[in-house]
């Protein structure tokens, strides 16, 4: 049996499509309506409500809490401020990514960490010799993500919303229910994530849906989220990279540098897991880069026209390995799709460093009428879509 999230009673009633998928052992909606299209547009034009409870959540408390996180992650956690949220990856001893997530500082000695995979054992094993308590609170805390230009107004309608800057968090009450709100998300838009105890999950859902009615709120599923996160250039574990914990061979692993996360690696910290390997890599430069790819529309159109068809684009974001070519194979895309807001065919890709500069002309493999062909594409800067409201 799969697990159900604290919001399942509501999401199940709303899921007209009966289209479900697995996420971290839970059952979650792929889309609520028969097509995910409206859900996507709500993210960019109104407000979309996602059940993100399957995320793994760890409470890290104690005198050495910051030291533990400094040891494990690549960011300088000690220097973060109370109320700040850090996005970070963490590595094994060889400097290869194990996972990525956020670290929120709740107090001097208290943090909340989110992760895509279970990490309790890793955190505990790294806590040897430290005065710190790591607790898995994944099951006891429900999480919702409210994303879209209307999201702030909806929250304001429910209570005292502190003026939160991008990647900040605060405890507050929504309709009298104690919650934590962080200005974070996985869509690259204005949005919030709300953390609530399991008992208050359903009332919170109801309150948000009710308050959001006038602002065009819709529950949204994973298909809509996937497209939005690609537009935002955000990577996904098990899709865009393989955790060093699960990789069968070394070439399947990726370092933070190879995933375009150099900005999250603080080599000035005295030591952290993987530091020496990352220092070495920083010196010689990464061999791979994680980049944005834009497929050339006219090239695509031509390939279809040759067989007498109008151009087709993927209906939903895809997740697979697609070869990219320069003079030889230059890399591979790992997720992509047709961006409804940009009207562009975009993808996220691993490229060998020599072909990774923005503007580099490439070819991407596509299948047209059972034949494998190559469409012209080029390297572009991420994120593909970056509205001002995200940070404003």
């Amino acid at each position: 049996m799969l697990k159900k999230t604290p919001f399942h009673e509501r999401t199940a009633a709303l899921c007209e499509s009966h289209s479900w998928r697995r996420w971290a052992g839970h059952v979650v909606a792929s889309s609520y309506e028969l097509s995910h299209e409206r859900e996507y547009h709500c993210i960019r034009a109104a407000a979309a409500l996602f059940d993100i409870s399957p995320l793994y959540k760890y409470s890290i408390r104690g005198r050495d809490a910051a030291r533990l996180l400094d040891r494990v992650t690549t960011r300088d956690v000690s220097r973060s401020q109370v109320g700040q949220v850090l996005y970070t990856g963490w590595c094994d001893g060889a400097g290869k990514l194990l996972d990525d997530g956020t670290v929120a500082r709740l107090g001097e000695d208290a943090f909340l960490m989110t992760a895509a995979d279970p990490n309790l054992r890793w955190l505990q094993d790294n806590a040897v010799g430290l005065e710190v308590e790591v607790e898995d609170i994944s099951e006891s805390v429900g999480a919702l993500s409210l994303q879209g230009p209307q999201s702030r107004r909806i929250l304001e309608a429910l209570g005292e919303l502190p003026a939160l800057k991008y990647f900040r968090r605060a405890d507050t009450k929504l309709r009298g229910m104690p919650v934590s709100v962080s200005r974070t998300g996985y869509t690259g838009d204005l949005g919030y994530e709300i953390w609530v105890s399991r008992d208050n999950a359903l009332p919170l859902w109801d309150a948000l849906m009710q308050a959001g009615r006038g602002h065009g709120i819709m529950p949204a599923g994973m298909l809509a989220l996937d497209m939005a996160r690609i537009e935002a250039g955000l990577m996904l574990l098990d899709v865009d990279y393989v955790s060093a914990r699960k990789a069968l061979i070394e070439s399947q692993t990726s370092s933070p540098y190879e995933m375009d996360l150099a900005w999250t690696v603080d080599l000035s910290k005295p030591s952290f897991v993987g530091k020496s390997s990352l220092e070495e890599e920083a010196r010689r430069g990464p061999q791979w880069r994680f980049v944005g790819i834009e497929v050339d529309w006219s090239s695509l159109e031509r390939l279809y026209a040759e067989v007498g068809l109008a151009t087709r684009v993927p209906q939903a974001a895809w997740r697979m390995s697609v070869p990219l070519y320069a003079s030889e194979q230059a890399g591979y895309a790992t997720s992509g799709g047709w961006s409804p807001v940009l009207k562009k065919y975009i993808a996220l890709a691993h490229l060998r460093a020599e072909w990774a500069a923005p503007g580099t002309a490439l070819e991407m493999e596509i299948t047209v009428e059972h034949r494998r062909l190559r469409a012209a594409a080029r390297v572009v800067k991420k994120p593909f879509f970056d509205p001002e409201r995200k940070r404003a």
Partner: protein
Amino acid sequence: MTRYDVIVIGGGHNGLVCAAYLARAGRKVLVLERRERVGGAAMSEEVFPGFRFSVFSYVVSLLRPEIIRDLELPRYGLHILPLESTLTPLPNGDYLAQWSDHDQNRRELARHSLRDAEAYDEFGLVLHHMARAIKPLLAVAPPDPTSLRREQLFDLFQLRTYFKDLGTKRFHALHKLLTMSAADYLDEWFETEALKATKSASGIIGTMLGPRSPGTAYVLLHHYMGELDGVFRAWGFARGGNGSVSAAIAASAQARGTEIRTSSPVSNVIVRSGKVRGVVLEGGEEIEADLVVSGADPRRTFLGLVGEQHLPGELVESIRRFRFRGSSAKVNLALGELPEFTCLPGRGPHLRGATSISPSVDYLERAYDDAKYGEISRRPYMDIVIPSMLDPAMAPPGKHVMSIFVQYAPYHLNGGWTDAKREALGDAVVDTLSEYAPNLKGAILHRQVVTPADIERIVGLSEGNIFQGELSLQQMFFLRPAPAWSRYRTPIRGLYQCGSGTHPGGGVMGASGRNAAFAVLGEPP
């Protein structure tokens, strides 16, 4: 009179595999089986009217996929049905289940320990790598490190290169796995007692060692070996029982021209001037052949069929000290209804999988303590399957057969095996199991208890050892069955060995039979 190129002694699965490969290569092969049917310990029988049992070996875990493909076994009736889960009932009324679905398994493990749920995948990955490292070694004739012959030195050098290429990290991991105890190895990974116990149980099967004895960790690998061949569930049950594995191999061999004579016990191998000339049957009939392959265990082959007078003293000495010490028994039950486990009532999917009575490592260790001083385990380790849940034809409609593998039941029992001791073993098994499934006693229609002494008497395995000799490190690889004679050859020219008592040995794997066939043919496998 027909002239045969090769005589294979013993129609067990390895003998049949060997014969089939030889026939495939165009040899005229005769298989001589002592009993009235082939199969050896891989045999199905309607023990009670309407109830069919895999009387001895009962699961297919390691049968080499290349054998299934090469010999076209599915064409001859082989269908392996996967066992989906392992249920370990616990004395406190709870249980631990291991499921084949990743999410379901993680959820269940997390109920016992969040750390273990996480460690499980990493553990699987490490063993996957180890299984990959070991796998190529299963298909080779192990070189003798003491030999100075050129081809042996060459093979040794290749072996060294192979280990070097593994990298030091994996080599050390392999070293640990080969030398540690299952209990210590699992202690490094897990904290849930029932999980450690159930996993370590695979390390003690067929041995006279406890889970805390170094040398028992290696067998943990076997569970992961199957995955490398694209089989996602390593353990399975052959439709029709394990006899259908033998039957399929026999049919495949016959289709390739092999002749099989049952009820034809061989009394001895004819040796003249250091060379094999054929065999003599117990009835006195002589059958000539220049090549003879023995599927019997090393003790019966060398000390029985060949005779000490034809063998170098060193080899005789090695075979004498080759350890058998059978330690496992089988209890086969015909049931009027399904067992109802207190911990998980109802007809759930757990009944389609295995049930393991292994609540803690201490429990297994205590079972071993009884046996090492010559007694039956008062509370034995058991591995239970209900084949009729997967193949309803094994029992009359609505009724069931239950197959219980039991350890420890030492061959060298104080006072020897008697009918009373056999029934005492049966009672210990039923009593222990009834603690977890109270309706069992009332459900039993018939009971068959097979002791190591019975296995020896019926199947001919010395001391009832199911692997034709213990699978301990000092009896493996180039030491199996004896130094310098691990490559399926013998000091008698033309005489080969193909049983589980040779490398790699153990389980219904067939690798020994296949490797031996290639040794006879003088080709690499």
